């Protein structure tokens, strides 16, 4: 317990079972405010489940999740989002029948304070219009603004996913494998985009591409079989014997 600023995200002995199967088995994690933190680990280790537990998609079976020192475990996702945490999904999860423009706009209506307003013309909100246009420019979809999201290419949908996640201006951003399935060039663009959009925010990212992880992250945690087996700077992780054995060794082979 440090008396100074609490970590942006803290998980305290978090557990999650599906039926009799315990998937998250006493997970401890601490991400400092402003840090870029990557979670790596083999498929099925529980990375996405961890995101689900932090973002309120599911409640932990036991343990505690804190956002800026306040307990958020058990809260519904929209309340966690309103407290400044936003996440993306590993499988693209957008509003398929709505245009790209509408997708991004819906993602920032709450934080711009328009909420459930049924007395304002949504097309005449200068703040909303400017921010939407800015984000579309940022994610490189300005020319595709009118296209239904369901008709975008895969890489475009992933960019939109990041746009929706960051549009509301949340202080803490969770990205679940944002570059999965992308070509080398697309990955580079996506990483540059992530860097830009999460400037000055806290980032927790799940990523399989090791060059992305070691290039982007300030700290790395290794999740294996529902537990963090190591957490440290990229150099510490690279040189950690347990990590090499459990995970990186497999990769190198």
């Amino acid at each position, binding site marked *: 317990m440090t008396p100074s600023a609490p970590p942006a995200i803290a998980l305290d002995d978090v557990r999650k079972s599906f039926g009799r199967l315990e998937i998250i088995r006493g997970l401890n994690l601490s991400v400092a405010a402003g840090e870029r933190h990557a979670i790596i680990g083999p498929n099925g280790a529980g990375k996405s489940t961890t995101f689900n537990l932090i973002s309120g998609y599911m409640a932990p079976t036991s343990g505690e999740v804190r956002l800026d020192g306040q307990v958020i475990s058990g809260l*519904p996702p929209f309340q966690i989002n309103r407290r400044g945490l936003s*996440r993306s999904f590993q499988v693209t999860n*957008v509003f398929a029948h709505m245009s790209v423009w*509408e997708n991004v706009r*819906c*993602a920032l209506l709450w934080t711009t304070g328009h909420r*459930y307003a*049924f007395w304002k013309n*949504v097309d005449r909100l200068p703040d909303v219009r400017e921010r939407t246009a800015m984000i579309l420019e940022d994610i490189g979809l300005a*020319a595709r603004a009118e296209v239904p999201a369901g008709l975008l290419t895969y890489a475009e949908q992933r960019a939109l996913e990041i746009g929706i996640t960051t549009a509301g201006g949340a202080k803490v951003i969770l990205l679940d494998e944002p570059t999965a399935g992308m070509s080398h060039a697309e990955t580079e663009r996506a990483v540059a985009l992530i860097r830009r959009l999460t400037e000055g925010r806290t980032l927790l990212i799940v990523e399989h591409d090791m060059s992305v992880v070691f290039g982007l992250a300030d700290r790395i945690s290794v999740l294996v079989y529902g537990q963090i087996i190591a957490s440290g700077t990229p150099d510490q992780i690279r040189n950690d014997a347990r990590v090499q054995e459990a995970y990186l060794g497999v990769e190198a082979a």
Partner: protein
Amino acid sequence: MSSTPFALAAAPSRRRDALQFYGAWLAVIAVMLILPRAFSSGGALTTFSLMGISVIFALSYNILLGQTGMLSFGHAVYYGLGGFLAVHAMNAIGAAKWPVPLPVVPLIGGLAGLVFALILGWVSTRRSGTAFAMISLGVAELVASSALILRSFFGGEAGVTANRTKLFKLFGLSFGPQIQIYYLVAAWTLIALIAMYALTRTPFGRMCNAVRDNPERVQFVGYDPHIVRYIAFAFAGLFAGIAGALSAINFEIANSAYLGTQQSGVALFAAYIGGIGVFIGPVIGAILVTYLSLVLSDLSSVWQLYFGLIFIAVVAFAPGGIAGLLLRHRPLLRAGQMWPVLRAYVVAAPPTAVMLAGLVLGIEIVVRHTVGTSDDPVMHLFGYSLDTGSPLSWAIAALLTLVGFTLARLTWKHVARAFDDAMTVARAKGYLA
């Protein structure tokens, strides 16, 4: 495919869109003013009044189904309660001589719909999908059966009557003649149309679409889908109540049929046949369904069966409804590719008509044989007289259906090919929608 033509077309098309937009509303007002002059018989005025009421009701239903993705089987509850409250309000106002004129009464019906939607909707809007649909059905049954128990309010089988001419008279309007009722309905239809359209263009309206598309993701951008659905439900109740009140004013009665599942079905029918994906869809559907139900019920004793068939046909072949069907042709029209498709339609029309004629003939023959014992066995259809007892009639029906079907199938394949070709050209020219 490049996106440049699209970007270039954007600036001038915005001005054109604005012109089209205000032009459309002016056209609506013009039609409302011209209709009673062009067709001034009492029957026509009643038909138009019923269409207006149906338009409001179907649009209110589409706030749920088309905008927010909630399939309700009990929307008539709010229509009916609006109607009953309107009847009681008319009686109370007339008896107490309050200075409340008739045009205000639909507002009372609307408030009734709103309040009951707020009370009954909280639990059901927690979920969408099957749970919501089932609860809506349960609530509808509950209210419909209460209507038969609480006789003092609902008037039992007979319903409750009112006299709309006994209210405070503004500008000397008695609201006895149907033409005055027509204008009352038209004015409320216009108000409701504008209000419900405006609603789709608000932050709330857009979040309704988001909840419809992906209720899960909505939660991760700060919204509680339950609240979005609840507000949508309240608005739907409000406008349904207005429609019910107008109906009560028109007929000067409210009875349990107002609340029933059949009335709920009317909204679902109209919205779906017209097209739930476009604002204008339920308007088209409501006008068509009202017209058909008046015309068909005169022509055939089994007109509801035809309704069912039309509904099935729309679900199977045009899930976007009539409006969706029309909208699919927009890129062709813009790219100047309509001709080959139109030609294909013209070719497909005669065999399709033959097939339908055969079907109708078959249905009517069967109906005469099984139901219409008191009916004359000779029936008159399309200007011909046929003896339904003779095997010849049966053979004709079967032949028409089969030949029509065989030819129609070929011609519709041709339509599909012509459409695809035209669409390919339109896409190449950059017209996506």
